[in-house]
């Protein structure tokens, strides 16, 4: 996977915070040091509120970095993300630790890449699509979401990918069904060099299996409960063929082949 970056503790200013659809938002933060250092697949550990009874930071993927700003796509789930959605432009109450983690690995030999996202799994794939396109890789995206409004990164993918195909659970856009139906067809149609995927773990597991069956390399980005985010607490372990690894430093991106899908490690459902 790609190199880790030097992380810093950085106070951030909210530049923009907007609702994209029911329960999903995009926040743009002024965070020059992070914006400079971040690479595709990295995340930040965000402190949303200093006085709250919720003590811990919240991990969020960097969706895009431009100039001095980084952009996060977030889904409102619990107390932390609820308060995040209320932040106003100009707010200076938050700080981040980042960029953190081991991101997506990009090989110079890659000519064709398939990106498969489920819901907010599109978040860590944003910078990746931009970077792959910049490198001249032919990018194809398969996106899934509950409904058309939740295909939140579609514009970005359409800008940078050769082709974008969508699936929605309710049929409101594209294929009426699972994104894994699309990825399976795409993998059969095209000889991809690599598959990158992020989304619900059950979905990633299916995509990994589709790639494995066709001997295509596959990278997954996994979510775990994280206390420290820097590799010290061992809260976030992922079972791999070479033992328990820390999602926050050894991941969140892993080679799919490495992961033992033991299913016990998913964060709380809401």
């Amino acid at each position, binding site marked *: 996977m790609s190199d880790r970056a*030097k*992380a*810093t*503790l950085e106070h951030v200013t909210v530049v923009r915070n907007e609702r994209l659809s029911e329960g999903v938002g995009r926040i743009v933060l002024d965070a020059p040091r992070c914006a400079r250092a971040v690479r595709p697949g990295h995340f930040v550990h965000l*402190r949303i509120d200093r006085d709250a*009874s*919720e*003590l*811990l*930071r919240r991990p969020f993927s960097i969706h895009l970095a431009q100039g001095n700003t980084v952009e996060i796509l977030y889904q409102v789930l619990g107390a932390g993300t609820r308060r995040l959605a209320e932040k106003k432009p100009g707010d200076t109450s938050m700080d981040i*630790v980042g960029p953190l983690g081991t991101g997506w690995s990009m090989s110079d030999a890659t000519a064709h890449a398939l990106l498969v996202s489920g819901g907010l799994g599109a978040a860590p794939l944003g910078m990746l699509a931009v970077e792959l396109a910049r490198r001249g890789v032919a990018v194809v995206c398969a996106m899934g979401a509950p409904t058309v409004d939740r295909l939140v990164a579609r514009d970005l993918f359409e800008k940078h990918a050769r082709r974008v195909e969508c699936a929605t659970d309710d049929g409101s856009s594209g294929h009426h069904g699972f994104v894994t139906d699309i990825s399976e067809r795409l993998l059969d149609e095209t000889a991809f060099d690599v598959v990158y995927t992020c989304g619900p773990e059950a979905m990633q597991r299916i995509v990994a299996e589709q790639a494995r069956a066709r001997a295509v390399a596959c990278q997954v980005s996994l979510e*775990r*409960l*994280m*206390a*420290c*985010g*820097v*590799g*010290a*607490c*061992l*809260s*976030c*372990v992922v079972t791999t063929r070479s*033992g*328990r690894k820390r999602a926050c*430093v050894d991941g969140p991106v892993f080679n799919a082949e490495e992961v033992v899908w033991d299913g*016990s*490690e998913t*964060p*709380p*459902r*809401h």
Partner: protein
Amino acid sequence: MDLSVEVAGLSLRTPVMTASGTFASGREFADFVDVRALGAIVTKGVSFVPWPGNDSPRMAETASGMLNSIGLQNPGVEAFCDVDLRWLARHAPETPVIVNVCGHSVEEYVRVVGRLESEPHVSAYELNISCPNVDEGGMAFGTSCSGAHEVVTACRAATARPLIAKLSPNVADITEIARSVEAAGADAVSLINTLLGMSIDAGTRRPRLARVVGGLSGPAIKPVALRMVWQVANAVSVTVIGMGGIMSGEDAVEFLLAGADAVAVGTANFVDPTSVERVTHGISGYCRDHGIARARDLVGGLIT
């Protein structure tokens, strides 16, 4: 400002150490703090053979605190010497290293100490007889006077280095345990380890931790920690290292006033990776504001 303190015969530059298991061996925080400026580094728990730790989920957030059930996952003492101690010797050669020692049996504690005796870069041992996250050993020793006494006695015979007994708060009278480890030859006690707790997800009707129960840490437990430090400092004459919910310099000062000779910062490292430095500066600032020349003059200074 003189921040130096004496802990179990060691001279520390500052009274602020790291709490075991929350700072790894320092490397993970090297981007954020100068590990050479710490009072001491207390490493994560080290066992003789590698321990896999518990199943996930291993962490749950609670009101002003968190539960963990890591279960002392560690690569064993050999790997610890190869990787962690080597890194520390190189990057923090002057900082005292206190190794947190754990075992499933009295013999395992002794074997870990025995293996580390030949390592020059170890300053002291902290015997973890209070981890609530393992089935054998850990808290089982630390919640009875006889168990605590036995572990300390055996390790005392194995080393002349300072021995710190880390006490469990999950007891009716912590001063009893403190006195029994003092009698067994401990040079210091550190407290508190985590309170045994549990969290339930009403939505799924399942425990939030795979192990069901885990250890509670963070500001939520500070009142319990302060009370126990105060009780123990009044009960023993050995060094007392206080911890439990320290987030700021002011919190640390409260522990010193209650009778701790030094403090350790744990969960705060997760919230703010610069915490150990911030707490240290906070103590200096407090001393400056209150006209106190030496931080150690605060120790036991509570006016009752």
